[in-house]
């Protein structure tokens, strides 16, 4: 009998601890200690967590290396995903210090709820471009060709930044596309083009540049009318706010702009 009672007590404790743990971990980042008060010096090791949109993978990796080189003792931890995914994670309390989004609308979801410090700064622009497999099996030459019957074109879903840009581009060019798939991230669109599943995809100019010989890029004239502006901001409640701000300045400064420009991003 005592075993059974012990079991029940154990069960009650387990359930209680689970519930308490649930209450303890609140969603907002606002419970964190205020920034800067711990007074880290440059010589101590500090890890900066940067969340960046998937289209910034190559550029931010290089920028992180350069930042680490310029700031001994600092490690930059990078996390790349679709901007909207990252917003969700930050909302749920993910430990991000800096956030770089692929468009203003996505960043606005955080700044609206005061989850970022101050006003975000635009550090680059990106425009859409058509990407086709290297051998261009569907003979695409212009944006209008994408709407031709029998062409398998893959785009981003309207809910994500590159999808919003696509809708704007369609409006500017006066062409309605009938895609075979709407992906959650531009990297998935590019993947379907490079693997030959799609005849064409709408991706960023930077993606085409990074993909090299695997894809052929076809510029779209009206794309200039629908650019995505990339903002960067320090996440509210970050424990490394000063370092984060320093990184943001690095990105908007000469070095950052140089790296971004070389990858194909437009000026801010």
């Amino acid at each position, binding site marked *: 009998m005592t075993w059974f009672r012990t*079991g029940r007590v154990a069960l009650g404790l387990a359930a209680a601890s689970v519930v308490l743990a649930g209450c303890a971990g609140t969603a907002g980042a606002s419970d964190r200690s205020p920034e800067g008060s711990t007074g880290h010096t440059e010589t101590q090791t500090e890890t900066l967590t940067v969340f960046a949109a998937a289209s910034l993978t190559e550029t931010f990796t290089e920028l992180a290396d350069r930042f680490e080189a310029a700031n001994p003792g600092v490690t930059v931890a990078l996390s790349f995903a679709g901007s909207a*995914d990252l917003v969700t994670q930050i909302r749920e309390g993910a430990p991000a210090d800096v956030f770089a989004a692929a468009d203003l609308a996505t960043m606005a979801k955080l700044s609206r709820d005061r989850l970022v410090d101050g006003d975000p700064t635009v550090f680059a622009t990106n425009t859409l471009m058509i990407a086709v497999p290297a051998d261009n099996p569907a003979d695409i030459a212009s944006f209008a060709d994408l709407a031709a019957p029998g062409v398998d074109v893959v785009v981003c879903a309207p809910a994500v930044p590159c999808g919003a840009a696509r809708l704007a581009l369609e409006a500017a060019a006066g062409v309605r596309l009938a895609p075979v798939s709407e992906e959650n991230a531009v990297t998935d669109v590019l993947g379907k083009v490079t*693997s030959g599943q799609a005849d064409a995809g709408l991706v960023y100019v930077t993606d085409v540049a990074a993909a090299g010989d695997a894809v052929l890029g076809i510029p779209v004239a009206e794309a200039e009318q629908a650019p995505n502006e990339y903002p960067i901001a320090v996440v509210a409640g970050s424990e490394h706010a000063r370092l984060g701000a320093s990184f943001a300045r690095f990105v908007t400064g000469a070095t950052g702009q140089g790296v971004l420009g070389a990858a194909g991003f437009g000026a801010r």
Partner: protein
Amino acid sequence: MTLGVPRWTLAVAAVGALFIVLPIVGMTLRVEWSQFGALVTSEASVAALLLSLRTAAMSTVLCLLFGVPMALALARSRFPGQRLVRAVVLLPLVLPPVVGGIALLSTFGRRGLLGETFEVLGIQIAFSTTAVVLAQTFVALPFLVLSVEATLRASGARFEAVAATLGATPGTVLRRVTLPLVLPGLISGAVLAFARALGEFGATLTFAGSLQGVTRTLPLEIYLQRETDADAAVALALVLVAVALIVMVATHRPRGLS
């Protein structure tokens, strides 16, 4: 009430059950009930749910058509390399679904092993509902095979031997003895397969793409809604849980019907 197990095992079992139940409860508590009706009856949601039910049903039928003979071959016959064949057939159980999607792409994709031939013949599988059914069947088939094979092994071949000596041809034995006896395992296997097909995500996303009404099943719709409307995502997630629960509860037969 006579207890067949030591009481502490029940306590541990309860903790384990809580581990599964609590997250579901937690999610249910997040639902915005005032908007629930509007969220789950939106055009996109309804399209996703109907597509999921349709494709999962078709996949289950395919699993039955192919899985039962496979189980028979594994449990009732003997051939060289049988253990290896069995291990390979059960691979989708342990493979990450995305890997399954990549495997399907390399076979049925436009540049795939068979895909190129299909392209020439004018059949396109990529980005179609067929691709969704293929992906779901790929991941759900092992569940059915395992369930039926286990039942076959348990019942043994004794009844089938008796039937044969009574003059029943192998076809008659299969129809009148083997299959009726394997029915409980068949049903539970089909239910598992259906539930697995319903929840399939990784292989579908990689292989079939995502387009409303064509390939965007309910899990994919939830994935998309997460980006913009967390409330919609949670509401749809609850719908998926409810459908799965209904299917499993409705088809569960308590043992004891010998």
